[in-house]
């Protein structure tokens, strides 16, 4: 099979074979990071631009490292101190950066659809590093990769995604990818954080983590982003932690081999207790390592799809 997509805008756009192809490629590339010389020449002479219109530390670092390990040249643009503050539009900024001879643009933005708009206006390949509450495909890929690595398959695997589903791009990308690969997904949280229409995407809705935790193989606890909470979507963090946080009691109710995930950074004591985060069930640090491999795989495949002049 040959990779044909020019961009990675979201997991919604990928079919099962394409998803597996990225996962398989990531598996191969994961080894690179275990070498003493952690570099291969796959993207030598290519330039990757990271356009982050929203603050990010770990995703940005992960993309940087992924590009560097493939020997790409790298430039970075963050919103603060840019020409955007001078009234330049998004498309102007992106076009200017492309005019410097960039091959791939990795973009993060607080508004859904920005990667799609850039894909329409620019010639280079676009990688979505998170667009508002819409998609975060590489996070979805690394979560799925981690589950597959741990359980050997995704077929029939039961996954609970807990937290602010309404505002979560991680949830959406996970749902698109997991369902295509045969997993079953339940979203868990208070009704104010779960739009009822999410059921149309093919997931179950639960408001009771104690019940759901007994039936699943994987629990993915989303970060509660206080900055997205607007006015009182739930009464207090204390109540949230009691109703929807992972703690020792809930871990006991669950299957012994429950896989506990979190996209980070963890609010210890909110989404999960320290005890759970550091338990043998937790794969949170593996997720981070796998993120690097998945992002390398995405660069690698998109680069291969380029038509050289």
């Amino acid at each position, binding site marked *: 099979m040959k990779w044909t997509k020019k961009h990675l805008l979201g997991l*919604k756009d990928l079919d099962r074979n394409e998803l597996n192809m990225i996962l398989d490629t990531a598996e191969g590339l994961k080894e690179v990071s275990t070498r003493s010389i952690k570099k291969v020449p796959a993207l030598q002479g290519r330039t990757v631009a990271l356009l982050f219109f929203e603050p990010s530390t770990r995703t940005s670092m992960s993309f940087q490292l992924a590009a560097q390990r493939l020997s790409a040249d790298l430039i970075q643009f963050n919103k603060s101190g840019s020409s955007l503050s001078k009234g330049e*539009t998004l498309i102007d900024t992106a076009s200017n950066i492309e005019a410097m001879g960039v091959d791939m643009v990795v973009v993060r933005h607080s508004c859904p659809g920005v990667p799609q708009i850039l894909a329409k206006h620019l010639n280079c390949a676009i990688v979505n590093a998170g667009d508002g509450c819409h*998609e975060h495909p590489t996070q979805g890929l690394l979560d799925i990769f981690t589950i597959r690595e741990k359980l050997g398959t995704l077929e029939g695997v039961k996954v609970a995604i807990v937290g602010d589903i309404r505002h979560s791009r991680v949830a959406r990308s996970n749902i698109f990818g997991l369902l295509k690969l045969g997993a079953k997904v339940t979203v868990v949280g208070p009704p104010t954080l779960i739009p009822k229409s999410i059921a149309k995407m093919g997931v179950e809705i639960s408001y009771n983590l104690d019940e759901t935790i007994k039936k699943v193989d994987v629990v993915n606890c989303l970060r509660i982003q206080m900055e997205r909470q607007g006015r009182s979507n739930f009464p207090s963090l204390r109540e949230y932690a009691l109703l929807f946080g992972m703690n020792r009691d809930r871990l006991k109710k669950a299957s012994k081999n429950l896989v506990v995930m979190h996209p980070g950074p963890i609010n210890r004591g909110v989404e999960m207790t320290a005890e759970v985060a550091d338990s043998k069930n937790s794969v949170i640090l593996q997720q981070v390592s796998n993120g690097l491999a998945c992002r390398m795989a995405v660069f690698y495949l998109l680069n291969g799809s380029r038509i050289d002049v």
Partner: protein
Amino acid sequence: MSKTILQGGRVIDVSKAKEIKADILLEGKKIIKISSDLNSEDIKSAKIIDCTDKIIAPGLIDMNVHFREPGRDEEETIKSGLSAALHGGFTAVVMMADTETPIDNEASVEFVSNQARRAHSAKCYPVGAITVGLDGERLTEMGLLSRAGAVAFSDADSSVEHSGVMHRALEYADMCGKPIISFCRDASMIGSGVMAAGDVATELGFSGIAPLVEELRLYRDLALAEATGAHLHVAGISSRKSVELIREAKKNGVKVTCDVTPHNLFLSDICIQDFNTSFKVYPPLRGKEHRDALMQGLVDGTIDAISSHHNPVGLEEKQQEFLAAPFGAIGLESTLPVLLTQAVGRGKLTIAKLIQKLSFNPAKILQLDGGELKEGSVADITIIDTKLANTIDTDKFYSNSANCPFDGYHASGRAIAVLLNGKYISL
């Protein structure tokens, strides 16, 4: 005075909602005779315009448009807006009060009328604001505004939040014999919504605007209209429940009328999947169940009028990210072709019924001249070719703006000429 005959057309008799074969004799600004056998005397002395197979309709009236003069002239002046109206087949428009300096005093009302007169184009009837500066608190001098020419009162796209103020506004406007036009929107329910609530919004990660945002405010305004006996006109409804509420209220004798936009009738929230900001409109584009109910409301008479809510937004504003781009769509130059194709062409409305919604009813609701072809009345007439294939192309628009969600739409039928005060203008 020179005489003209519109010969052989299908003349719309709006009061009976049917078309008749007749010739129309015009002299100067007036319609002199509508008859299927004009005498040879008349024919001999008149200039004949062949209208075979064409629809002869009373001049169309768009009862809800936003122009941007004074303040943001680059988006739409009164002149450019009226020119767009004329080329879309409208001989009159009703202009909302939400200019940068709102139409909330006599001088502003007169300014609009004067600019319209200087434009030598379609007619422009100003709506006065309900509250000073659209602040939702202090009532405008509605009596004086009426005298200056305001045909109704409305705070345009901002709904009066304070129920007590709305109550007094209805009472007071009723004394002036003018309707209150309410755009039903409960601000506390919108949150950060940018499109219709539902599975498309959820998938795209946008906050949704639930039908309740509109319906809650509609409940209130209908109750106030019932209590005061005043005339409430609800602008731009978008939900199934809103149609039901208004149908019920009319049955109970509440003095309520309403309108709907072509984009709310024919476009769905699925259009937003490509993040094209031309589809970012308020009220938002909704799913099929709502659009079907709106069409049913038009058919059974619950919905009285169709209006574009022509809302010009500059390109650099609309070119922003979806969240940042303002709401709004223009429609003066797409409304008629779209309706002829989607409503008449698909057998949902007869042409006569469509003309009722675009001319007769708006005139009746706002007590404007026109809306009907009658002997002795001013000759504002729209001539329509219902078969003429045409493509909506914003590059060819007379409007200063281009934010039309129907850009690129292949239509069948459009206005080919208008008569304005008896003057024939070929489009």
